Structure formats: structure tokens, C-alpha cells
């Protein structure tokens, strides 16, 4: 009786694992399909998207070569990387400083800043899209360097909020001791506070990396055709005339996904934790 129950339970668990395997394959299928088609000639992608690239359909790396060339992929990759890395570094540093300051200095104006930043988190981008981009044009911030400042402005709301929340939870004693021993605020921040903020800094960095790397609308509004990021380059490939090189498109999509997958697999734990912590953004 007992052993029958155990056996039934094992069978049930094996069935569940099998179900999960099927679901996982289903989840990966879209990417697998793009990958398979990226080795096919353009004509065959439209008429026969679900077969393997065999015989005359197979084009080797041809799609990748033409995709890279058509959208100047490495150029776009470079700008995406530059904008993302610089913006994230700037956001982490300045938001941490601001988060510490407005939590430790309890005045009316720091409260006002705090609530303004919390408020900014619930405002959709479309609300400020038009006025902000006009404003950025006037101030000549419509280039890959100016956009970093704009990203700091948009990213600082959530990031400062998260740093501030963490600062509230750490004791003030060590900072005070350091200051009494003659350590200035700047040295106190970099030597004592910032190292303690590390877990939040990682979360903030990941959240902003995912946002800025994938962002399409803001760079489209601010950057010209010499400074395309990857999402803009992908959209550009489609062109305005409806005719689209499907083969090159498949290759470009795969190349756009690879950096994300590499980043994800290399620091998966932090990413899942970080992205979900951003759930507070709502």
C-alpha cells in the first residue's frame, strides 16, 4: 500500500516535470524559430517559416553579413553600450549621493525633493515626451552625450527612492563617528556610506541597464541617424517602404538578443532579484 502510494507520487512528479519541459520548450520556441530562419534565404522565410534551413534554403552566415552591413550593427552596438554604461554609472553615483543627503538632512526642501521624485515614478513618458524633447533640442542635449543627462533626470526618481529607502535602514552611528573624527562629508560618503549601499547600487544598476539598453522612444526623439542605438537600428531596417529584408532582419534580431542573454546568464541571480525589486515602481 505504502509503496504503491510512493510510486504513484513519483509518477505524478515525473509527469509534472515533463509538463514543465514542454512549457519551457514552448517558451524558447519563438527565439529558436528566429535562430533557424536566420540561416535561410529571405524568400523561404516568408513562404516556409517552420522548416529547417536545408538544401537550397541554407545561406550560411549570409544574412548576418548583410544584416551587420545594412544597419551598421557594430556602430549601433557601440552607441548602445556607450550610452547605457555612462548613463547607468552617472545614475548610480548621483542618485546614491542624493538619496543619502535627502535622508540624512531632514528639512522641508529635502522632503519636497523626495516626494517629487516618488511622484515622477507614476508619470508615463508620453506626458513629458513632447515638451522634454523640444527642451532638449533648445539646450543642444539631443546627442549621445546630452542624452546621458536626460537619462539621469528620468532615472533619478526610482533610483533615489531606492537608495533613500536603504539609507533609512542603516544606522547613522558610524557616519557620525567618522564625521566627528574629522572626516568630511564627501570622504564619509565614499569611504563609509557607498560601500554599505552596494546591494542597492547593484539593483539600481541592473534596473537602469535593462531600461536604457532596450529603450526606443527617448533615443528616437533625441538622436539623429548618425547615432542609432540597437533598437533604433532594428526598427530602421524595416524601412519606410514596407519591403523588408527578412533574412537580414532575423540575423539582426538574434544579434540584438545575444548581448542580453549573455548579460542575463552571467549575473542571473542579481538580475532576477533586481528586476523584481523594481516592482515598487508600479
Amino acid at each position, binding site marked *: 500500500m505504502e509503496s504503491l502510494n510512493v510510486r504513484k507520487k513519483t509518477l505524478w512528479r515525473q509527469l509534472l516535470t515533463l509538463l514543465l519541459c514542454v512549457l519551457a520548450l514552448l*517558451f524558447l520556441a519563438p527565439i529558436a524559430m528566429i535562430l533557424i530562419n536566420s540561416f535561410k534565404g529571405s524568400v523561404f522565410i*516568408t513562404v516556409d517559416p517552420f522548416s529547417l534551413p536545408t538544401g537550397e534554403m541554407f545561406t550560411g552566415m549570409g544574412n548576418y553579413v548583410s544584416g551587420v552591413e545594412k544597419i551598421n550593427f557594430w556602430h549601433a552596438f557601440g552607441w548602445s553600450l556607450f550610452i547605457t554604461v555612462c548613463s547607468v554609472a552617472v545614475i548610480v553615483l548621483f542618485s546614491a549621493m542624493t538619496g543619502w543627503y535627502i535622508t540624512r538632512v531632514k528639512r522641508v526642501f529635502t522632503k519636497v525633493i523626495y516626494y517629487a521624485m516618488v511622484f515622477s515614478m507614476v508619470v508615463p513618458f508620453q506626458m513629458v515626451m513632447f515638451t522634454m524633447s523640444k527642451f532638449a533640442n533648445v539646450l543642444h542635449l539631443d546627442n549621445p552625450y546630452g542624452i546621458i543627462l536626460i537619462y539621469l533626470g528620468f532615472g533619478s526618481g526610482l533610483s533615489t527612492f531606492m537608495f533613500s529607502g536603504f539609507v533609512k535602514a542603516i544606522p547613522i552611528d558610524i557616519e557620525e563617528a567618522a564625521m566627528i573624527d574629522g572626516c568630511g562629508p564627501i570622504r564619509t560618503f565614499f569611504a563609509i556610506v557607498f560601500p554599505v549601499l552596494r546591494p542597492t547600487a547593484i539593483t539600481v544598476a541592473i534596473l537602469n541597464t535593462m531600461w536604457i539598453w532596450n529603450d526606443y522612444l527617448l533615443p528616437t526623439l533625441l538622436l539623429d541617424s548618425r547615432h542609432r542605438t540597437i*533598437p533604433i537600428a532594428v526598427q530602421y531596417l524595416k524601412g519606410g517602404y514596407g519591403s523588408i529584408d527578412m533574412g537580414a532582419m532575423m540575423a539582426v534580431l538574434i544579434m540584438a538578443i545575444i548581448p542580453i542573454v549573455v548579460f542575463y546568464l552571467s549575473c542571473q541571480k542579481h538580475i532576477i532579484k533586481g528586476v523584481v525589486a523594481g516592482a515598487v515602481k508600479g
Partner: protein
Amino acid sequence: MEKALAKYFPVFVLPTLAAFALAFVIPFLMGIYLSFTEFTTVTNAKWVGIANYVRAFTANKEFVNALWFTVRFAVVSIITVNVLSFALAMLLTQGLKGTNVFRTVFFMPNLIGGIVLGYIWQIILNGILYYFDVTLAFDPSYGFWGLIILMNWQLIGYMMIIYIAGIQNIPGELTEAARVDGANRRQMLTNVTIPMVMPAITICTFLTMTNSFKIFDQNLVLTAGAPSKKTAMLALDIYNTFYVRTGFEGVGQAKAVIFFILVAGISFIQLYLTRSREVEQ
């Protein structure tokens, strides 16, 4: 310490504050003002009262249509995403082999950007529809369900992680006590698991709702509103009003304000509902 630190305002706060004012505060206030004016560039605004708000609804059916489409989309997404991600979370908390690998796989689509996601699904769905001699642009309901599938693929893994955390937080004694009392699987689910993960359900419901309302990239790529703007959602409709035709900038801004009030309203209700239950991050 507070006094010594207070003097360092220009170092610690000013850079962030300047960028924040530039990118958000000033454009936001200007946006509200401009929604009551007629303008083509920001400097030639002429006060027109609430005319833009009226025109947003009456000039054509596009905004009302987008609003209705978005609401229907949000309702269907909330149900499908939450049911499926909760089911997955239940499966992944049974201590089965390979749980971590499955978690990794299900979460991954969440990290892919909207533009790339949109193209992946456009190619696949059009590939399937090709056998029926139609495309996604054939009927608004194709675009609708296409967006629903895309949204589920993107969000299920994310919500699943939140549900897994909720399920793992249920005290062991509670499930043990229920089991000793002879509760069966269904009773365990409805009387123990679901009530205990209620906070996670609230969070996931609102997250799906705000995500559904704000969706833009995926909408732009998958259907771009086709056929004849019937599948354009709020964010895309606002974008089109601003940039596709001239003379409607004021109307676009008025639509943006309405959009902001809707999204902010949802967020505040969420904040109110979760504040008592959630521990501050």
C-alpha cells in the same frame, strides 16, 4: 552631522536635481500648461481653454477607440498573465528537479526589449497566418490576440518570480496543520495558498495593469495600429497625434494629460491597497 552635511547641497543634490528638473519637472509643468493651448512649437502657444480636451474625444474616434482597446487589453492580460504565472509558480515550488533551469527560461523573455519582442512575434504570427492567406493587419482581433500572446510571453516569468516568493513565504506550520486536518489539494489551494499570497496577487494585478496601459514599442512594431488605427493603444495614439500629423500638438498633449491621470490613478490605488501590507523596501 546634519549641519555639516547640509552645506554640501551643491555636491550631493544639485547635479541630480538639475537633471531631474530639466528632464521631468519643467517638461511636466509645461505639458500641463500646453494642453490648454494651441501650439506647433513650444513658444507660440495660444490659450484655448479646454478645447483640446474636447477635441481629443470629438475630432475623431481614434482616442476613444484606443482607450477602449487598452482597457480590454488590460483586462484580458491581467487574467491570463496572473492565472498562468500563478500556475507556473505552483509547479516550480514542488521541489521538482531542474526548478532553477525552468525559472531561468521562463524569466528570460522579460529582459528582451519591446522592439525586438515585437518583431519576433510579428514574424511568427504572420508566419502562421500565412497558411490562412491573411496577416496580422487583416482584422483588429488578430492584432489584439497577438498583443495578448506577446504580453503573456513577456510578463509571465516576471510575475511568476513574485508569486514564487509569495508561496515560499507561507509558514510551513500552516500547510502542515491543514494537511493534518485532512485538507485535499483543492482545499489547500483555495483556503491556504490563495489567501496567503493575496498581497502578491494585488501587486501582480496592478503591475500587469500599468504595463498594459503603458505598452508602446510592442504595439508600434506588431501592428502599428493596423488595420486603420483600430489596434492603436493609448501610448501609440498619443505618439501619432503628436508626430504623424501637424496641428494636433495641443490635442496630443491633452491626451497625454488624460493618459497620465489614468496611469497615476491606478498607481495611487495600488499604493493605497498595498501600503498597509508591504514592508518598506
